[in-house]
């Protein structure tokens, strides 16, 4: 089983490296239009063919990997940090706040945000805002888990002993509580990363994700809405394959972690 975990880890590192080294690996820029070759089939010039306006699918996939693999973990990290901060700062009303936050129709907030953004907002800022909002919106899920863990800790003997011994709350949090919470935070991080990759893909399908011409797995998957395109060039499925592979690897790491715990 450890071997599977290792393979999953290697694959994730390889995919992340592919994204990180996009400018060096991709044969063309993600927005270069080859108007002489729209919808070109895979061949020596374009390994995965071109999209409807003649952009190289392979180059766009690599750049999309960079965006999705970089920003989804960043958003997940933002959610975890925010959740921990809110759990630490709020003594009362946390449960009510998480319940309210979880019941909000976030998809409509995304639509409103996109409509209200200044039109001069460039694609890069727009992407950062999309993932940023995802990170902010997603704090309630880990916060609920952290609240439960902290609740368990408060009942534990070691905490009472630490308090009785006069150890400062900051030291208790740093030296005793954090090692317990760290494993919970890591597990939450592994859950949130694929969730955000999928959310971005779903938003991309609705046209609310990463704006063109920047590619992401989400907006590349919009082509799947058109069976004709899939039929004529199966490489259109490549972002889906990559997304599934990343999800599988993350799932594998998560389940291995649970087994080892």
């Amino acid at each position, binding site marked *: 089983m450890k071997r599977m975990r290792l393979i999953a880890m290697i694959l994730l590192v390889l995919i992340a490296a592919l994204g990180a080294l996009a400018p060096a690996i991709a044969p063309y820029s993600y927005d270069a*239009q080859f108007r002489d070759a729209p919808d070109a089939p895979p061949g020596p010039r374009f390994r995965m063919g071109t999209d*409807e306006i*003649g952009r190289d699918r392979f180059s766009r996939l690599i750049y999309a990997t960079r965006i999705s693999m970089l920003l989804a973990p960043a958003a997940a990290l933002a959610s975890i940090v925010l959740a921990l901060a809110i759990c630490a700062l709020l003594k009362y009303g946390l449960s009510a706040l998480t319940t309210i936050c979880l019941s909000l129709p976030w998809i409509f907030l995304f639509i409103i945000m996109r*409509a209200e953004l200044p*039109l001069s907002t460039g694609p890069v800022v727009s992407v950062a805002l999309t993932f940023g909002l995802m990170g902010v919106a997603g704090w309630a899920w880990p916060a609920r888990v952290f609240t439960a863990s902290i609740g368990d800790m408060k009942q534990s003997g070691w905490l009472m002993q630490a308090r009785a011994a006069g150890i400062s709350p900051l030291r208790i949090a740093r030296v005793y509580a954090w090692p317990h919470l760290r494993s919970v935070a890591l597990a939450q991080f592994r859950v949130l990363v694929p969730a955000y990759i999928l959310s971005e893909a779903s938003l991309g399908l609705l046209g609310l994700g990463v*704006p*063109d011409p920047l590619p992401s797995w989400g907006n590349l998957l919009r082509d799947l809405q058109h069976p*004709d395109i899939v039929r004529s060039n199966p490489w259109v499925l490549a972002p889906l394959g990559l997304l599934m592979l990343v999800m599988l690897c993350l799932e594998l790491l998560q389940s291995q972690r649970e087994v080892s715990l």
Partner: protein
Amino acid sequence: MTTTNRTNTQIAQLWSRRLSAVVRGLCLALIPLLALAAPPKELRFSIAGDPKTFDPLHIEESNSQTISYLTSGVLVKVNRATDQLQPELAESWEIKDSGRTITFHLRAGLKFSDGTPLTSADVVRTLSRALDPKEGSPAGDTFRSADGPPEIHATTPRDLTIHYKLPKAGLDRLFDQLGIPPASPAKLPASAGPFIVAEYHAGDYVRLARNPNYWKHDTAGHPLPYLDSIRIDIQQNHDIELARFLRGESQIINRLEPESFDRVAKEKPAAARNLGASLDNEFLWFNEAPAKTMPDWKRKWFTSPAFRHGISNAIHRDDIARIVYRGHAHPAASPVSTANKFWFNAALKAPVGDATASLKILAAEGFKLRDGVLRDRDGHPVEFSIVTNSGNRPREQMGQLIQSDLLKIGIRVNVVPLDFGSLLDRVYKTQNYDAAILGFSNVEVDPMEIMNFWLSSGSQHPWWPSEKTPATPWEARIDELELKQASESSRDLRKKSMDEMQRIAEEQEPIVQLVNPDYLCAIAPSVKGSQPTVAPPQVLWNIEWLRLE
């Protein structure tokens, strides 16, 4: 004797009952056989959504419009193939007083599908309802006049007269769009057209049945329509609609996207029909309204005809037609499509994408290209955003191509797809945008339809909606020409005004015309008698003459 007679009578009645039972049984057994011998002729096609109404006076969307075309009786109809008016419920008509008065003479013995007679009183009631502001009928818009409502009189049960104070352009042709409903409203109303609404299952289908009282017959005296019924599936997904057609489960797709058309042409070549440029046009325009959110220097660019010409000349329309529409579109030169043969000003030509020519035009206005960035006289880099409706793939792709074309002349463009509500809000209410790409689907060939778009006071006047007074002399001249053609009864004089209006639109270019997409449709070879045209309802305009074999 009495007893014997009664017994004989009873025996006779018993045999009579047995005989009739046998006959009934035979008939019942024969019905399926008869049905096998002559299957019902049901045409099947799809519309994109539920019809919002079956009342021809309250139609605001295309699904209801399609049902209305098939069910409503009209006084006269424009023959979409010849563009000539043909009599329908009215057997004849006269226009008098230089286009101020029209008199219709109805056919004898007209009836609605429920058997009630259709008289001139029904037409008067229909037109009065359409013009009544309380009704808020979109059908009344074309009949309104700046000089008040017309006078409408039914002189006899078969004759009526409509009188305007001033001449009304194309007065007789207006009645092509006015369906005459019966007086009594019903959930599935009676009608005077070739079909009636027989069933409606929301979200599923509408079934139309032949109108038994339809007045029209073919030359052999056979009652029309030929079809027994029409099943109209409500199907929003075009891929499912296409799959059904390719499987032979439906016979018509009234409007095809270019990629779907290519697939039909490949798999069922006999069914694919490309009629060339449609009446629709796709275009880009700049916000020229004095919006608070826009700096003065930017507004100065947008209100400059040279700036607009520069942008227009940099756009490769042939690439848009070839790539976005897969070759099924034509570069547009005028607000009137080339398909509209009579009204199009044939002297106009679409600009050819040429970065050098574009820079030359912009340089004359003080714009300079330095280090790959175009700057105005005051050194501001030329950057702007283009909004369009999200989910509309052709428009999003046009935005991407234009973005790339303009980058070649040093202009950075941000393409922002917005949901349609937000887009309209920005364009028509807040004016918080720089430029937009949208399209116009023309239902009519007559230029009266684009008046609200081109009149400076028009609510749909895109670059500055509902201007209080025309901002420039050329806009004032366009207003003048539009109003002139609207009150002129001579078609040739109207054409002269429209030619000049199109020439000014080309010279000033407040709307940068992009392409006229082709009209593409699919008609199964089993459908006989079709004469598809680019004017709506395209394949369905002569529905009463369609047959299934």
